[in-house]
């Protein structure tokens, strides 16, 4: 009985939180057009969320690609199709691994930075100060950061995938000696524009989800050190789970 009560309470909390986030998202969507009237604020946030994530995205991309090269070559060598390494790696990276890993890295780097920054602004009365100055923090703080994240994600996905494919090529061609021409030409002939589009759509969807979760958690953080820490943790956990759930949903729709 106690377990059932806890389950019901947990479900109620979850629904309440989901409802609050939906209202928050609706408000962000409503004011979104006004965000583009001040592009400078968005550019600053594309730099913060996107450019500052480049190092971790590129490093991770290179190593993910190299691991794919090793594992892919080992697998394909068993069936004598090593030359298909380029196609397999490109499709896996474009359609799945690229968007998902980029979103997880984005949540860990940019998402936590967004949540803690906004949470600290709440804790130190900076958001209240804006309200008193007749400046809407939703428009001035939340919206540019949300839009910056949404714009950054597909770009980061594209960079991650490009670097990863380079990593696969390093292992496949340079290390294992697969023919360079065959590696690239088979990739070019098999990868369709729809595959690229799928990756970018996923990047966009994950960008919306991860950015929304980060700004929501930061904006609604308890104004204490503990509250900001909790908001940061929740940002990573909820973003990661949401990314994987959304990945299934988007894949099912696009296939």
């Amino acid at each position: 009985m106690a377990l059932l009560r806890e389950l019901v309470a947990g479900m109620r909390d979850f629904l309440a939180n989901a409802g609050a986030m939906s209202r928050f998202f609706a408000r962000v969507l409503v004011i979104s057009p006004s965000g583009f009237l001040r592009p400078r604020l968005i550019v600053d946030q594309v730099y913060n969320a996107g450019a500052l994530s480049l190092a971790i995205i590129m490093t991770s991309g290179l190593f993910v690609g190299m691991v794919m090269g090793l594992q892919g070559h080992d697998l394909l060598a068993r069936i004598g199709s090593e030359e298909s390494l380029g196609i397999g790696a490109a499709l896996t990276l474009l359609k799945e691994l690229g968007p998902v890993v980029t979103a997880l890295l984005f949540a860990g780097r940019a998402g936590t930075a967004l949540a803690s920054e906004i949470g600290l602004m709440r804790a130190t009365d900076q958001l209240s100060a804006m309200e008193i100055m007749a400046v809407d923090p939703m428009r001035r703080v939340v919206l540019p950061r949300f839009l910056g994240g949404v714009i950054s994600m597909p770009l980061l996905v594209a960079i991650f995938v490009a670097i990863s494919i380079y990593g696969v090529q390093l292992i496949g061609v340079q290390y294992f000696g697969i023919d360079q021409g065959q590696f690239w030409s088979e990739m070019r002939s098999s990868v369709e524009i729809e595959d690229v589009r799928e990756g970018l759509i996923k990047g966009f969807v994950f960008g919306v989800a991860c950015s929304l979760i980060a700004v929501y958690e930061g904006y609604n953080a308890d104004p204490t050190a503990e509250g900001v820490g909790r908001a940061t943790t929740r940002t990573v956990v909820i973003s990661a789970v949401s990314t994987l759930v959304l990945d299934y949903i988007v894949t099912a729709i696009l296939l």
Partner: protein
Amino acid sequence: MNQASPAAGPGSGADTRNIAALHGVHYAVDDKVVFDGLDIEIRRGEVTAIMGPSGTGKTTLLRLITGQIRADAGSVIVDGLDVAKLPMRDLYALRRRMGMLFQNGALFTDIDVFENVAFPLREHARLPERLVRTLVLTKLHAVGLRGAAHLLPQQLSGGMARRVALARSIVMDPDILIYDEPFAGLDPISMGVVMRLIRSLNDALGISSIVVTHDVQEISHIADVSYILSEGRVMASGSPTELRDHPSPLVHQFIEGLADGPVPFHYPAPDYREQLLAQHEGA
């Protein structure tokens, strides 16, 4: 206490005496009653101090005046406008005529002192950069920090941060300036500087000031009228001299800073002796 005139539009002259008036205000958070029929009037052109023991809702009062929260009952009239009934657009228009100094300064940590002071100007007025520069430097000069314009908030002392925040709150030439614990955590020199600034800005700019503070001695030098809040109501009001002579034990305890009195030193607890003996018996 003065009676407030009926609410009217700003500048209509219907209530020329008070810049703000709270009447019969009730406010509760969950089950805790913060205000239970609060009546306060803030006179135009004066420095009004709001004092009281911790947890009496002084900061909540400021949030009611600025429209950040709304009273459960009663009216909050600011410059002739009922704050609770204002749509967001009008509330923001009213706030443009307010300035507020937060306890910790609430400076934006990602921009320097100059940009912090320029922030309201850049948000609300499309002014030429030269004019923005002139206005910002003028306000920084008024608080004695023109030379610190290039510093980041992290590089400022507590007193300097408070003065920068003060410059930011007057850059739009407000009608009302609100201070939330402006002396908290300041050394005596900084405290004296902030104290003099509150009075001189009030008189030089012809504004009305509301100061929430615990510092009885300091505020008594600059306040025209003081209110002492307790248990959700105004316990006493008047000039510093009137408050010093007030018959209420609570006012006496507060003004003299006595550790025990109507506000007890000990948090409610079981009998000390019984509790100690019970521990020994339990052991």
